[in-house]
């Protein structure tokens, strides 16, 4: 199983990506697709600007995907993250996990998102409707907590 990893500015087609994972095979029993979208924060937000570390972003996403593949019996795994300016309502990130059964597909998709949020080198800056630059979005403690629950006993993380 070779995960598909991509960082790009243009929007993605979630349905086409799901179809690509299942095309020509009949052994997949579960496919979980997650899409993260840009919120307008009650109308105040004009856009999010996604900055990333070229090279490391793809490599870190691939490392997380390999770890997911080690933990669950996956038959397909896709992770696409956009960079650049993204308007409210537009998709930011797509994770698709395919497996024989739903438990592995759900868990792997959630694991991917929890790890991507805290380990993949992306940063969000807010742009306000009045045209001014807002703040850099701050990392949230609950995102770290969400990642921590996947830690395997006896394994030392970074």
């Amino acid at each position: 199983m070779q995960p598909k990893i991509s960082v790009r500015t243009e929007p993605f087609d979630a349905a086409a990506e799901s179809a690509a994972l299942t095309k020509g095979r009949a052994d997949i029993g579960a496919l979980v697709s997650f899409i993260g979208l840009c919120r307008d924060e009650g109308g105040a937000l004009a856009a999010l600007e996604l900055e990333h570390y070229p090279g490391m972003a793809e490599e870190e996403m691939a490392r997380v995907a390999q770890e997911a593949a080690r933990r669950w019996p996956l038959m397909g795994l896709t992770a696409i993250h956009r960079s650049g300016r993204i308007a409210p309502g537009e998709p930011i990130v797509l994770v698709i996990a395919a497996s024989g059964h739903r438990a592995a597909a759900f868990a792997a998709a959630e694991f991917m998102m929890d790890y991507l949020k805290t380990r993949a080198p992306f940063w969000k800056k807010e742009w306000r409707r009045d045209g001014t630059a807002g703040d850099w979005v701050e990392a949230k403690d609950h995102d770290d907590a969400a990642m921590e629950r996947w830690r395997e006993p006896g394994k030392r993380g970074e």
Partner: protein
Amino acid sequence: MKAVYFAWVRERVGLTDEEIAPPADVRTVADLLAWQIARGENYAYAFENAKAIRAALDRKHVKHDAPIAGVREVAFFPPMTGG
């Protein structure tokens, strides 16, 4: 070595990247942060709160006690907010 900066670290330093040549007694990421702070006001502003700074050596996450010997690229950035 090459230093690269992202997000508000990049904005505060005022550069996306630069070549740096720290002295031999700068051995770890923590040493490098302290050395950076002494380089000027913009660096002091960017790195004043070391706990808020994440680092990567040759594109891999490291802790601040990691040695920098032999490293080609060091990156400094705030906690990540993708997804």
